[in-house]
């Protein structure tokens, strides 16, 4: 492995840019994602930055049970993120539809049907610690040696 690759891995592991998208949640999980930014959990101490621009993002946090309005939009948003990238499903909603997935409801879970999901964080809502752990746990498998793995 080249030195350049080592430098890239080091930089990528300390600088993960996160964008999050709410595809129809109750707002519970959004609040937990925001709580990660607060001093108690301080997501930036791990080099994770939230700035909600898909073109700058490495990780997309998907929140919510996928309402029909997102049918065409989520895919486009995912395509805007430059490689290497990963999507994480936050909460029960993108995994199973949670309490909204009932007969006659309009939600269309799981989100994995629409874009590839690298990790799932179950819970309604999941704790900020669990969200942090998920982002940190995919860091190595997705971003490390990305150029090598792509070949």
């Amino acid at each position, binding site marked *: 492995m080249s030195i350049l690759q080592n430098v890239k891995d080091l930089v990528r592991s300390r600088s993960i840019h996160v964008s999050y998208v709410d595809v129809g949640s109750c707002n519970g999980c959004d609040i937990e994602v925001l709580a990660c930014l607060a001093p108690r959990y301080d997501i930036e*101490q791990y080099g994770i930055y939230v700035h909600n621009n898909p073109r700058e993002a490495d990780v997309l946090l998907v929140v919510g049970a996928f309402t029909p309005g997102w049918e065409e939009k989520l895919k486009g948003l995912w395509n805007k993120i430059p490689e290497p990238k990963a999507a994480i499903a936050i909460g*029960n909603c993108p995994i*199973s539809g*949670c309490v909204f997935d009932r007969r006659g409801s309009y939600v269309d879970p799981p989100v994995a049907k629409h874009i590839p999901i690298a990790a799932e964080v*179950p819970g309604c809502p999941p704790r900020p*610690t669990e969200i942090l752990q998920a982002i940190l746990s995919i860091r190595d498998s997705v971003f490390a040696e990305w150029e090598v793995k792509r070949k």
Partner: protein
Amino acid sequence: MAVSLFWYMVEFARFEWIKKFLFAKTAPLITPAHFRGFPEPTGKACQHALFCMMVCPAPGAIEVLHEGDGWKPKIHKGHCIRCGLCVEACPNGVLRSGRVLETMWDQGTSLLFSFRIAIDPDLCMGCGNCCTACPVNKLADAQMGAGGHSATDEVIMRVQGGDILVLHEEKCTGCKTCEQSCPNDAIRIARILEGIQQPIQKPSPEAGP
């Protein structure tokens, strides 16, 4: 302006500030033990009351599956919302989560299920499907055949003179098998959930150890 900018820069050049900026870490993130996690088995034997499945508000979160000789509740992550109601509803204390069980013992609270059988006499045609389908009836009277006639009074319900007669509503386990077997949707089972609190027996000081 220039002066204040100068002092601003001096503040950031302080050794303590630079040290803090580079090496500050928040305390390690530990989930306290009293937080409600996904329910875990306590090791007690599941008696297949299925109250956990009846009380669970999230679709597909809990299933009681056959395992070895007995039954075992299985929690599906991604569906479970960690509400802890199954822990409270289980009459045998099979599940635990956070300090839900401890609080229940401490305060003498519990969730109590009871079941009511309602049969619409205008819709019921006395076919006896429900009586034959009911698993409790099957245990009480193994001889009961199609038609739902029975010689014993121990059954929950039986067909008598062309009409359905409910004898032991209190034996119903709320499984709703009868509902599914009724061709006319005449029988309905209501699952009633009550929260109850019993006075706690505090050991009196005179009684001694």
